[in-house]
Every structure is written in structure tokens, then in C-alpha cells.
């Protein structure tokens, strides 16, 4: 086990400074009560909303009176867009930023529903943060929030790695039998590490930045069912910024496996391809507050530790049940961008994964309405 005393001590120091500098309106009785019973979580939520009201220009009155204030906060569109636009301001990530402090405190409240509210904004936080790293704009506030998420995930996982035993059909399984005699149980199984074990970090070291954000995204993915669609849409928009490619040229990528035909087709259409700027998107994407100039401004390195959770989230956005049209639209745009980017990086794993997602999206869109559970209509109705 790694035990890095210097980092863990800084972790505590760091948290101390954060909590000591915060000016919360939370009353002490509430912060100390760790009980998770309904009334206390409700009052926790209400005081959180109250402290938010000092930061935001306006809050809908319905929030405080709601029977489940944290849920209402999570799904309140008005408040979310207010917070989002604050997070996109140029100085939003500073260490003394009120909103970051509120997000940090809210997440530390260890109330599940309130933590979801913070996670809901992870796409914007991570998006603005990563695109801003190279711009030398203060980002300590964002880092505090991200570290809180990372620390939470480290504790829940007990620092353990997430692994997958890739099955091998020569062994019988739950869903199939084999005729071959059972060999030694461990043979033939490939152990794949999905997410390596976690070490405690008290500061964001630049070489660990991608990992910390990646783990925060893993946390987001584990709660993704509870996230409002808007949050996922914001995530998809930032994927395009990170990719630094607009991917328009792959919009029409066919689902067929024949690459040459699509290449030829592309050639016929050739010449028309201009990097088109989606003015609407660009304004939103200008995470740094300034309008981002041109495509590729927010491009960041996409190591696997970051790209992998991004792709998992994207897979959900594209192919989860009960889909939202706008989300699919944004997600497939994000996917084309990332496909273009992985072609630029010539990253085989990323090419395979994004290409498959694109093809699947395409076939899903074309899927007809054949329903095997439907009863055929018949002219003669009999028993």
C-alpha cells in the first residue's frame, strides 16, 4: 500500500484551511448532526438553499417550501442555469469564490441528495477547469471541489482498483454451459483494470490532474441516472471543446462496415468541408468567460484515464433507455468530435470505442419499429 505521509497530511491541512475560511450560514447544530433522518436532511437542504440565496441573484420561492428541497434544487432549471452562468465567469474558479465554497460545503454535508446537486455541476466545473488550466487563471476553487469528489470516491472504494475479469467462453458460466471439462478456474481469465487503485491527494499536482478529474467523472457516471438531462448536455458540449475538433466531417458516418465506400462518398462531397463554427455552441463553450476564438481553443490532452470515463458517460448519453432527443443530438456531436480527435492522436482504443458508438447511434436511429412482442393482426380471431 502506498502511504505517502506528506500528501495525506497536506490533505488534512488543505481541508482545514478550506473549512476555516468558509463563512457558512449553516448553524452549528446542523453540521454536527450526522443523522440521516428525513427532517434533519430537510433542514440541511434548507440551510444550504439559504446560503445559496446569498450567492445567486434570485431563487424560486418554491424551493424552500418544497417537501424535498434537495431534489427540487437538483431539478430546478432556473437555479441551475444561474449557477452555470456564474461558473463560467472568468473569476469563477478562484480560491475565494463564494460559489465554489458553497459547492464544496454542500458536497461535504454528506447528504446524498445534496451531493447529487454538486455532482450535477461537475460537467461545467471539470469543463471550465480543464480548459482553463493552460490560461493561468486562478482555479483553486474548482480544485477544492474536484478534490472533495476525488476524496469521496477514494473513501467509498476504500482506495481499491476497479477490475474486470474478462470472461472466456471455454469456462461454463451463469448463462452458458460448455462440454469441455472445467480446467483450473483461474486460467484464461484476463484481468483488466478499469480504474487503478486510488491514493489520497491533498492538492492537485499537475501530473495527476487528469486522474483526479477522471475519478470525479467516474463518480458522476455512477450516479448518472439521477442527473438531469441538462447536466449531461453540458457534459457533451464540453467534450467537443476538449476534443478540439468539431468532427463535422464524420456527421454522416455510415453505419456500414465498409470504410472505402464512405471514403469515396466523402471524396465526392469533398471540397465543401470547411470547419464550421457553431456560433451558438461556441458562445456557451467559451468556458473561460471570453468567447472562445475558433475551434480547438479549449483542446486539452486526453490521456486514457480521462478519456475512458468520458466515453462511458457518452455511451450512456447515446444509448441509455428512454432517451431525450436533444441529448442524443449533443452526444453524437460530442462523439464525432472525439472520433476526429482520436484519429488525430491515432489512438487505437479510442478510435475503436468512438467508431463503435457512432455506428451504434446510426443503427439506433435507423432502427425500425419491428416489435417481437406485438401480436399479429389476423382476419380470423379464434381461441
Amino acid at each position: 500500500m502506498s502511504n505517502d505521509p506528506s500528501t495525506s497530511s497536506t490533505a488534512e491541512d488543505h481541508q482545514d484551511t478550506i473549512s476555516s475560511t468558509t463563512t457558512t450560514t449553516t448553524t452549528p447544530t446542523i453540521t454536527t448532526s450526522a443523522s440521516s433522518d428525513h427532517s434533519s436532511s430537510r433542514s440541511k437542504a434548507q440551510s444550504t438553499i439559504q446560503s445559496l440565496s446569498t450567492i445567486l441573484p434570485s431563487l424560486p420561492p418554491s424551493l424552500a417550501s418544497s417537501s424535498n428541497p434537495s431534489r427540487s434544487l437538483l431539478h430546478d432549471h432556473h437555479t441551475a442555469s444561474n449557477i452555470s452562468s456564474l461558473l463560467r465567469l472568468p473569476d469563477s474558479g478562484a480560491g475565494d469564490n463564494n460559489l465554489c465554497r458553497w459547492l464544496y460545503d454542500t458536497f461535504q454535508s454528506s447528504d446524498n441528495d445534496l451531493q447529487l446537486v454538486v455532482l450535477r455541476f461537475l460537467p461545467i466545473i471539470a469543463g471550465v477547469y480543464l480548459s482553463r488550466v493552460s490560461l493561468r487563471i486562478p482555479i483553486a476553487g474548482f480544485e477544492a471541489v474536484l478534490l472533495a469528489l476525488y476524496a469521496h470516491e477514494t473513501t467509498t472504494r476504500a482506495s481499491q482498483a476497479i477490475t474486470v475479469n474478462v470472461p472466456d467462453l471455454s469456462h461454463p458460466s451463469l448463462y452458458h454451459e460448455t462440454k469441455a471439462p472445467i480446467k483450473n478456474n483461474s486460467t484464461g481469465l484476463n484481468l483488466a483494470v478499469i480504474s487503478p487503485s486510488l491514493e489520497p491527494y491533498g492538492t492537485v499536482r499537475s501530473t495527476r490532474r487528469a486522474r483526479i478529474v477522471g475519478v470525479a467523472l467516474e463518480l458522476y457516471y455512477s450516479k448518472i441516472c439521477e442527473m438531469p438531462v441538462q447536466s449531461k448536455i453540458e457534459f457533451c458540449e464540453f467534450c467537443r471543446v476538449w476534443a478540439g475538433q468539431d468532427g463535422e466531417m464524420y456527421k454522416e458516418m455510415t453505419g456500414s462496415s465498409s470504410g472505402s465506400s464512405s471514403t469515396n462518398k466523402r471524396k465526392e462531397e469533398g471540397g465543401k468541408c470547411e470547419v464550421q463554427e457553431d456560433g451558438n455552441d461556441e458562445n456557451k463553450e467559451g468556458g473561460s468567460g471570453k468567447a472562445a476564438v475558433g475551434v480547438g481553443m479549449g483542446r486539452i490532452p486526453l490521456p486514457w484515464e480521462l478519456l475512458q470515463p468520458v466515453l462511458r458517460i457518452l455511451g450512456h448519453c447515446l444509448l441509455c433507455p428512454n432517451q431525450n432527443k436533444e441529448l442524443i443530438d449533443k452526444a453524437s456531436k460530442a462523439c464525432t468530435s472525439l472520433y476526429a480527435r482520436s484519429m488525430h492522436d491515432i489512438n487505437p482504443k479510442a478510435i475503436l470505442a468512438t467508431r463503435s458508438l457512432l455506428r451504434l447511434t446510426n443503427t439506433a436511429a435507423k432502427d425500425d419499429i419491428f416489435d417481437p412482442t406485438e401480436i399479429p393482426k389476423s382476419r380470423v380471431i379464434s381461441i
Partner: protein
Amino acid sequence: MLTWSSGVKVVMHCKLSVEWIRDRDKGEICEQRAREQIVVNQSMESGEYEEGMEVEFSANGNSMKATEVQAKLDEGNIQEAESSLREGLSLNFEEARALLGKLEYQRGNLEGALRVFDGIDLQAAIERLQPNLAEKTPSKKGRSRSDSQHTVPQHAATLVLDAIYLKAKSLQKLGRLKEAANECNNVLDAVEKIFHQGIPDAQVDGRLQETVSQSVELLPELWKQAGYPQEAISAYRRALLSQWNLDNDCCARIQKGFAVFLLYSGVEAGPPSLGAQVEGSYVPKNNLEEAILLLMILLRKLSLGKTKWDSSLMEHLTFALSLCNQTFVLAKQLEEIMPGVYHRVDRWNSLALCYCGAGQNQEALNLLRKSLHKHERPEELMALLLAAKICSEDSYVAAEGVGYAQRAISNAQGLDEHLKGVGLRLLGLCLGKQAKVSSSDFERSRLQSEALKSLNEAINLEPNNSDLAFELGVHYAEHRNLDTALRYAKKFIDQTGGCLIKGWRLLALVLSAQQRFSEAHVVTDAALDETAKWEQGPLLRLKAKLKISESLPMDAIETYRNLLALVQAQRKSFGPLRISLQVEDDKVNEFEVWHGLSDLYSSLSYWKDAEICLSKARELKQHSAETLHAEGVIFEGQGQIQEALAAYIDCLLLEPCYVPCKILIAALLSKMGSTALPVARSLLSDALRIDPSNRKAWYYLGMIHRDDGRIGDAIDCFQAASMLEESDPIESFSSVL
């Protein structure tokens, strides 16, 4: 009765299936046809229905037109409709209701269908159908048990289950999904109650089986649509783990549905219940494992021809396995797919991606050579780029890579124009790599300048590509254009926010080459701050070498000591699970540390300590040029010239291109009198051919020229040596790549 028209259909049907097999690779068309085929089959069984056609009821050998009944239903008179049916066809109450419900459902009058079904007490009907427990328990012979199964009145069961199923379907179409799911669940519960042993093969009539299969398939779908993921998961598992006697297609559809749900729903399913687990069999413990297992089973069914081809299965599996870094397993799966499904070039290219993703570049390159052959698809951009990339990492195939990159550049047109910069970048990298093994100086400098030219063109096209900035930095540094190299190294750190150790190392090396040691030091320390303990190895090594350059040997020894502690701790605790990608790249090996330390001691003439360190290094790697070299240096330092020479020569026998030993032998020989000078000279020219920027080689060559009396040549060599010394990095620039 087989009418003429249905006879024609049978012929068509056969034709369709032949074509279907022929066209398997055109996946979608064949899917479409398979569906047509199903539709054809269904309409053959039940008599065709077309919009506006007159519907009739038929039962007990009688038939009657539905028009009259329909009219009654439209008036809201269910009772009357029911009684006229009962009279006309001599049915009982439930049978009449079932027929009416079906009519209403078929007419799209869902509310009406529900009203009709509500009149039947379905629960009571199910209870009546359950076999009497007293009858069942005493059976001792296997036969009597199957007898008791026969006693289930299948006709009645079909009637009841059909009715509940239609109720569920009606509710589904009305958007009352949760109720629908509950009804559907009732069907399955009823089946389980009625047939204790699971559904016996070939003992159930087709209609009943159809209803059961449809309910099994519908239930998870309903829970999913209703937004109850956990219920959907258990419905899927119930469908797949209990005995429902499903046909292959139905089972495959459910398995696929479940796999897709597991992969994308974002809901963690948790491991299946203990009851479902069989001793010694593989039990998936998370979503990815279960999804991959199901997809693999489905693909196996495909290759056995049990189900029809479905290209999306492979795409789902590709996504899942790429996420797990298991592209090697994916390659094996791709290889198992029957020929004719994918075009061979597509298959080669996908396989190449898989192998390259699994680090088996040679394998990947062989496949790409096939697919890029002039008779296959020589213009496929992705394959060209991948091939060029693989070649750019190996100097022996770099020349081949130049060709691929050039083809990629000329093919990057139209919609693919955005990949032109990638092609140029790879061209630059391949040329640079090729320059390293070129046989003549002229050739080398030509290749190098071409490499720089294409890298510069590439960065004009992609100013935001940080990788390019890094590669340009390294190229300029190797060219000893240190100011430009410095600029790019800084740019790289800015663009990446310092997130990659290699950027810091390049910056420190460039500064050290400029003899700005203290700044190099600051950079190294900053980099150490930005790096977690486990990954500090390469930086500590750099720091130790910086200390040596600054003539602080004691500090260097201290740094080496830290490094050793780190390496040993890593060796102890690095299980397979600890390795993250960046760490693996930057892991310092223990051998290097001992070797470095030994060099340091011998430079201080601490021969004993040097010996000890060297023996440690030798324990880790028995025969290596580095240890023989160090051994020679120690002998030489202690005045044992013959032994030193022997060690150097051994080293060259082991690794004929090992430059430092060539130089040391030449240096020793040059001191042995004029007869040895030509040999020494040829050794040094050889060394300079391999490594033209080696200042020591230039220095000794200068010495030989001087001893031979060629003062002009000697001056040139010394000048080169001193220029190189002023720009010599503490580690070779290529070590950061």
C-alpha cells in the same frame, strides 16, 4: 389449406432465405429481409389481415362475422356483444370475453379492450388452473410427474394467459407502463404456478408458448420504459435464468437487450443472486463483465448459425472491450467471426487497431501491409496513418513509414483534409527516425532537415496540438538548436498545463544543455512538486545527474539513495493493479540506478563502492554492455589496462554498436603507439557514424590527428568537440521520448 397465393409465398420465402445467406455481409438488408420473412410466416399462419378487411370469429368449428359484434361494442354494450358471441359460437363466458378483448385490441380500441378484460376474474381463473398439490407430491416414479403435467388444461391456460398478456399490451400502449409491467409479471407468475417443472419441451401448444415467450420478452422492456431499472434487471435475469423454453431468436433478443442495458443504462446491476450461481462456473460481478459475457455468448451463437447476423453485437463488444483495455481479446473475437461477414480489408484494419491497442505493433503492421496493398485499399486513410505511426516508433521500418505518411498526406483531401496535419507530423517523425540509422552524413542531414520541415508544416496546420510542440522541441534539441527547443518545451508545458512528466524533463534537459544548471534544477524541483511520489523516478535520476554536472557528488549520491529507496518500494508494492499508464512509462528500473551510482563512484575514484554497485547491477542483468563498460572503466581507473581493454572488447562483442566502448578502446589504443593509431581512428569514425554528436569521439579523434601531425584536422575536431560540449545535455534528448 394451402392456396395458390400462399404457395407462391412459400417459394418466395425459400428464395429469400437463399439470398439472405448470400448477402450476409450486407447486414442491414438481410435483417430487413429476415423481418419480411417473419411477417410472411405470420400472415401465412393466421390468414392475412389488411386494413379495412372484414374480420370474423371462429371457434368450435363455427365462424361468424364480427361486424355485428363490433357495432354492439361501439355502443358500449359489452354484455350484449358477449352474449351474441356465446350464442353464435357456443362459447363460455371467459372464451367470449377473450375473443372480444382481442377484437378490441386489434381494432386499436385499447380502453375498450381493458373494459372487456376487466370483466374476467383472471386471478380466479389462474387458481383454478393450478395443479392440485395433494395430487402432485406423492409421485415417486418419474412418469407420474409428467402425467400430472398433462393434466393441466392447456386450452384454458392459453386463454387466460393470452387475456392477461393482451391486457398488459393494452396498458403499455396507453402509457400505463407500471400497470402493464404488473400484468405481464402476472403472466409469468401464473406460468410458474401452473407448470411447476418449468415449461416442458414439446408438450405445450404453440400458442401458449408464444404468449409465454412474448411475456418474458416484454416484461423487462416495460420496466425499462417505466423507469424501474432494478426491476428491469431482475426481469432480465428471470428471463434468462429460468426455464421458459424460449426459441433461439427470442433468447438472443433478450440477451442483447440485457447486455445493452448493462452497458449503457448507468445502473449497477450487482451480482446475480446466489441461487443462480453454479459451483465452478463463471459468475460476472459487475455490469461490464456480465455484458461482455452475454455479448460473447451471442457472438458464439452467431458463428454457430443459431441466430441471424447482427452487426451491432460486435460494435457493443468493441466498445466494452476497448474501455477495458482488452483489445487483444477483441481481436480474438474478431478472428472468430465467420468469413464473409466483414470485408477482409475492414477485418484487417479493425484487427490492426486491436493489436496496436494491445501493444502488438508488429502484428498490426503486418495486417496493415496486407490491407494497404495496391490490390486492396491502398488509399484508406486510417490504415495509412496507423501504419505510419507504428513505423515512426521503430527506426528499422521508418523508411516504410515515410511512404505511408506521404500517401496519407496526398489522400487527405476533401472531408479528410483535417488529417493532413497528422500525416505531416508522422512524416516528420518517420524521417527523423530514419535519419538515426542512415549510413551517410549527407543522407542523415537531408533526412533531418526534411523531418523538421514537415513537422513545421504540421504545426502550422495544427497550432494547438501539444504533441507536435513536444516533438518539435525534441527534434530541435537533437539538432542542438537549443533556443528554439526551449521555446517549444515551454509551449508544451503551457499547453498541457504541465500534466506530463516528459515535458518537464525535456525543459530541464534543454536547460542543462545550455549549461544553465541552476535553472534546470529549479525546473526539476518544480516538476517533483507536481508529481506524486511514485512517479518521481525519472526526475530524481535527472536531479542526480544535474548534481554531478554541478560538481556536487555528495548531493548526487544522496539523490541516488532516495531513488533507490523509491525503486525498491515500487518493486515491493507494484501489484498488477497499481499501474497507471503514466507510471508504467516512467518507471525507473533498478538496474539503471545501480549502474548510475557505480559510474558516479568510479568518477570519484571510490573503486570499492563502484564495484559493489556494479555487482548489484549485474545481479539484475547478467550480460549487458553497460555493466561491461562500467567494469572496464573501473579497471582502467585502477591502471589495469589489459583487463579494461578485455572488458571493452567483450562489450563490443555483445553489442557491436555500443558507442562509449568504441571510444574508450580507441582512447586506449591511441596511447599505445603509432601502430595502433589507424585502428583507433577507424573505431572513432565508426562511433561518429552512429552518434555524430558525441563530443568525446570528436575529442579523441582530434588527439589522434594531432599525434599523426595533421594539425588542421585536429583543430576541426577539437572545435567540434568543444561546441558540442557547450550544448551537451545531461541525458540524451531521445530519452524523453
